[in-house]
């Protein structure tokens, strides 16, 4: 099912004509209304009149998270405050939060895109959506909520936390769609098991998971343990919130980016040059319909690639691959690039090992030392120390084999790595570089 047939299946040519018109309008508006963009454009000797084709987007300068921080809190807003009806702030996983604003129309657009996303992920009128994304400054909860209401589904605004109560609600209300972070969904399973509740007896059909990177192996685990079809959703508050891109349940291969509202690019994070389709690099977004908080070539730091091939679901919008890491999360350990998601894959592929892990990087003398903390689950636990040490060795061996980097593996007690609410802290870099 497709929520907005006209725009989601629009032929490329017509789509690109709309993109250009909307891009030109956005560029003119930020130039007129946001000091930061006007000055940055002037420094780069480019003006709104230079944007005559979609390719001309490459002439515009990038915007980074630091730029948003420098203009904290409202300096990047392109409308007067009396038109702003909502303010959110990013979760600040990597430092000071960034503040974003929405006009009434922005909220409508967001709800429309989230309704599209929910439908692509299997939801429809008549479904009950258990929305375990946090409500508050974080865009996840309210973003899904407005989309679900517009779609006509029944939304349970359960938010994050109080997991035992969530299990009770899942059992009693019979929700059919779960929206949550992937790590929280696995936490839900653990708690449900402790309470003697099996997901096999619940009514879930689809789960829409996002807000943190996850892997195909984790998808398989979630689908098995939660007994539902899991799709990936993508979004970030700087661009809008959840609902920037969504996997369709038909293909589950890449996330359709709503290109009538956002123009994606993939760049090399070092040379900053645009990369061709299929090549992995940093994802960059330009919003072309947002009023209060438009961004021009915003560097997301998320690493992925773009796929222009037609999709079996009928949507014509480009697909982004699953995010495999972040250009700033990327650890360089003794010259080797390591993404936490790669370590996660190794753990998921190691028999009996839980995907609850944390990477700690220290510098001893001139040498980087990577420690992987892994929680001991019941399946891998043994009363014999040598068996546990063998597990540590096996993980360490697999990491070395697949990533080419030595890691010391330390088993830790369950639930010592915080993960239940919001995003798990996967990396602690103690190096003073």
């Amino acid at each position, binding site marked *: 099912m497709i929520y907005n047939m006209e725009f989601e299946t629009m032929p490329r040519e017509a789509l690109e004509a709309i993109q250009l018109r909307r891009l030109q309008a956005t560029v003119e508006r930020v130039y007129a209304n946001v000091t930061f963009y006007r000055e940055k454009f002037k420094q780069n000797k480019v003006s709104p009149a230079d944007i005559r084709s979609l390719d001309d987007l490459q002439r515009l300068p990038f915007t980074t998270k630091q730029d948003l921080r420098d203009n904290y809190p409202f300096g990047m807003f392109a409308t007067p405050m009396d038109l702003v009806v909502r303010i959110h702030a990013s979760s600040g996983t990597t430092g000071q939060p960034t503040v974003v604003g929405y006009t009434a129309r922005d909220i409508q657009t967001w709800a429309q895109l989230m309704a599209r996303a929910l439908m692509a992920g299997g939801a429809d009128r008549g479904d009950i959506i258990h929305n375990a994304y946090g409500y508050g400054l974080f865009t996840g909860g309210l973003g899904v909520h407005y989309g679900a209401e517009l779609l006509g589904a029944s939304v349970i605004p359960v938010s994050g936390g109080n997991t035992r109560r969530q299990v009770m609600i899942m059992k009693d209300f019979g929700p059919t769609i779960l929206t949550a972070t992937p790590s929280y969904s696995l936490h839900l399973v653990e708690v449900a098991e*402790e309470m003697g509740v099996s997901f096999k007896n619940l009514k879930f059909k689809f789960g829409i998971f996002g807000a943190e990177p996850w892997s195909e192996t984790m998808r398989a685990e979630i689908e098995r343990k939660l007994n539902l079809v899991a799709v990936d959703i993508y979004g970030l508050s700087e661009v809008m919130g959840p609902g920037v891109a969504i996997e369709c349940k038909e293909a589950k291969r890449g996330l359709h980016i709503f290109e009538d509202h956002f123009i994606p690019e993939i760049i090399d994070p070092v040379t900053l040059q645009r990369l061709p389709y299929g090549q992995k690099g940093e994802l960059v977004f330009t919003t072309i319909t947002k009023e209060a908080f438009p961004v021009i070539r915003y560097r997301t730091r998320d690493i992925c690639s773009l796929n222009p091939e037609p999709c079996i679901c009928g949507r014509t919008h480009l697909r982004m691959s699953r995010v495999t890491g972040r250009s700033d999360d990327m650890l360089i350990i003794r010259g080797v690039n390591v993404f936490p998601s790669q370590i996660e894959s190794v753990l998921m592929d190691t028999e009996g090992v839980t995907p609850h892990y944390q990477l700690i990087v220290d510098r001893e003398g001139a040498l980087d030392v990577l420690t992987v903390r892994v929680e*001991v*689950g*019941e399946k891998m*636990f*043994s*009363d*014999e*120390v040598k068996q*546990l*040490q063998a597990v540590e060795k096996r993980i360490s061996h697999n990491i070395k084999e697949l990533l080419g980097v030595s890691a010391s593996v*330390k*088993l*830790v*007690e*369950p*639930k*010592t790595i915080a993960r239940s609410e919001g995003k798990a802290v996967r990396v602690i870099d103690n190096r003073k570089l």
Partner: protein
Amino acid sequence: MQVEQISVFLENKSGRLSEVTGILAEAGVNIRALALADTSDFGVLRLIVDHKERAIQTLKDNGFTVGKTEVLAIEVEDRPGGLHKILEILRGNGINVEYMYAYVRQSGKNAIMIFRFDPIETAIKVLQKNAVRIIDGATLHAM
């Protein structure tokens, strides 16, 4: 024949052991024997308790990883050479002791030791053939 032992994963952090004993005390579980094996990072606490299921449930509820293993409680003569005699029998039959520790109570004049074998069935056969007394769970807990 077998006795069920519970094992608990512990990180090497000060106070962890007393947390376990505290949880068990509160649950009214009596520890009959205990041994700790450790490395520089973690340890495995092995316990024989009077209320096994209750102990497992409370420890799990408190977030610990808990396992169950079958071990043997063996009577050992309380005199020089008592333990040696048993170990010789095992050695002579090529049976490896994974680990062992002492039980608190005595069986008459004899001491009791907890042994972990792999595989346990072969060890039982050999010990029985050599007239070594194995104390089953019910008898052990009734002492």
